[in-house]
């Protein structure tokens, strides 16, 4: 099949595993191969508009290549899903809409050996901090609907309640702040450096919490998250992740503009990657270093 001359409908028969494609081709393919797109009416409208534009462009034999960030981040979206919507298997987390400072710090963490995944490291090693920052801002600005929670692991209601308690109130006896204190009252993260905790698959949450606990995953020093996770026993971690992975997202899924008012973090839990969290009333500032 000659794709240069292909009409939109002819593309629909071609199936790929991850609905991977780009621009308007991608949207059209998703419509026919991904169920979740069918319920997304905005997607339909967008597709029809794009389709009309593209059909005109096609007639003029316009090149498909576009000089933009979507094109430049194909190496990312190959695993993290179209527009950074997350990979299909739970191991490649969503990138779209996460705070830019957080995404940028994760790229730095891979580049500087605080997080470990060979494929990531190899990809970003030749890139400089400015370009990594641009990629982070690109994904941060993408707006995509979140999937429904799917966690269905066996856990008692008591343990789930314990999870909820830790997330929303912490545990003063262990000096543990509530997750909401840093990750926002809605748990959708806080600009610019703190990620949301909802809409993540249970496997991913468990893998990350486990990696924090063993020191496989780290952040800029002082590493508040490592300190927090190390104070939580393993079965409480499962309770936390199980509760988080069962929560639907609130109507407003955006990260909060600033940390919730009230208590600031104790001195022992300062965050190198999010300095504003331990500075009362301070304006948000970017943490981490190139």
């Amino acid at each position: 099949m000659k794709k240069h001359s292909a009409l939109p409908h002819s593309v629909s028969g071609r199936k790929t595993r991850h609905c991977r494609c780009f621009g308007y081709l991608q949207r059209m393919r998703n419509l026919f191969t991904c169920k979740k797109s069918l319920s997304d009416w905005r997607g339909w409208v967008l597709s029809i508009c794009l389709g009309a534009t593209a059909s005109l462009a096609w007639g003029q034999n316009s090149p498909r290549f576009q000089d933009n960030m979507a094109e430049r981040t194909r190496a990312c979206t190959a695993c993290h899903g179209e527009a950074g919507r997350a990979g299909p298997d739970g191991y490649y987390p969503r990138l779209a809409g996460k705070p830019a400072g957080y995404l940028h710090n994760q790229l730095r963490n891979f580049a500087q050996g605080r997080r470990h995944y060979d494929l990531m490291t190899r990809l970003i090693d030749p890139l400089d901090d400015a370009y990594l920052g641009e990629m982070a801002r690109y994904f941060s600005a993408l707006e995509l609907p979140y999937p429904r929670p799917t966690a269905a692991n066996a856990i008692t209601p008591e343990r789930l309640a314990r999870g909820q308690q830790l997330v929303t109130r912490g545990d003063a006896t262990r000096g543990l702040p509530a997750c909401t204190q840093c990750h926002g009252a809605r748990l959708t993260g806080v600009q610019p450096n703190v990620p949301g905790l909802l809409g993540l698959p249970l496997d991913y949450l468990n893998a990350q919490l486990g990696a924090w606990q063993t020191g496989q995953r780290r952040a800029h020093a002082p590493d508040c998250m490592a300190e927090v996770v190390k104070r939580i026993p393993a079965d409480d971690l499962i309770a936390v992740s199980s509760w988080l992975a069962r929560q639907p997202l609130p109507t407003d899924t955006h990260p909060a503009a600033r940390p919730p008012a009230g208590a600031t973090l104790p001195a022992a839990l300062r965050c190198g990657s999010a300095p504003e969290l331990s500075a009362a009333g301070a304006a948000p500032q970017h943490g981490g270093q190139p």
Partner: protein
Amino acid sequence: MSMAPQTTRQRIALGLISTLLILAAWVVWDNWGRQAPAAPATTTSPSADAAQRIERGQYLARAGNCVGCHTARGGKPMAGGRRIETPFGSVFSTNLTPEPATGLGLWSADDFWQALHLGRAKSGRLLIPAFPYNHTSVISRSDSDDLLAWLQSLPPVQQKAPTHTLVWPVGTQPALAVWRSLFFSPTPFQPDPNQTPQWNRGAYLVQGLGHCAACHSPRNELGASGAVTNLSGGLMPVVNWYAPDLTNDTETGLASTPLAEIVRLLQSGASASAQTSGPMAEVVQHGTRHMNEADLQAVAVYLQSRAQAMTRSPLPTAKAVVTARVAEQGLKVYERHCAQCHDEQGRGATTVSGDVAYPALAGNRAVLLRDPTNLVQTVLYGGYGPVTAGHPRPFGMPPFVLELDDRDIAAVLTHLRTQWGNTAGEVTPLQVNRIRAAGTP
């Protein structure tokens, strides 16, 4: 005098023992007896000159990509500790910051010159040739002094390198001594009076600081690379990339590419007809992109002259005979995963400003290399070109290691090596598997 030997057997034994002793004595002299040539040391200069020396030293260190090995991931610059994999185990780079206990804090300019020139530490200990001292022996005394001036201007970092984990006896002093007697002798730079100063500057940089032959020459079973002037290409052990033959125009185009394009490739990581990837992308990122125009011109002139001096008739190209099944599979994979960026006709894609976004595959020298190693690496692990001033926002290739199996990759590589006028050999699933199985070091 002692009695004459009685039997033939005794005579042979005595002969063997004396030969061994003489050899051993020679090895000892060869390794520890030599002195670095009495320093044509650059005169110790007034402090006004010191800043210049440091600046020159930094430039030279960048040109030599010293930081590439002597800095650990996320570590302090030049404080060492980076693991370097060799076929004989891992070595860890040394701390070159001016810290007295674990770095070069107590080293004099003579000590440093001895390390570069003779591959011997201040203590007399023989250095492991993962440090390419056959190349650093080319470096002039003046450049050596500048390099040290820069190193000593860095913040001292107390950090001891982890112990090497080499298989016995590799890395022991006697083994190193024998190895060095076999494969190492210092080669101070000898300018060729028949060539221009520019050519000689290029030769000096390529053979010395640039240590190009460390990758671009074949390595033998004992890990020795070719002479510093040998640029005939080689498969890099462990990392599994093929460094092309720089004297062969078919592989690199150095004889026929305009000089400005060679300079552009080293400066920006990409030219109109070539892109750097893998280890060469690192060389551009940490090394050549920092070099000045004059030095890059000199390097280009030297490399081009080396390539032009080697005239050879193009090898007869026999187009691979591919089974219908492989051809069909290759086309299928290409259309599904490659054509969107590289185009159905393998023409690639360029930006509006004319920069290569996705390289053309038709007629691409890297695609046609006899050894398909780099192609397999590229498909397995994808990658970006290096960020440089000329290419601040490169496009990237996704990794396919999790998505395509060995047969798919072999078929698609065979496809693009035999389409659009390309006539290179078939790639087999076994070749793909070998590289996949080696993993990422």
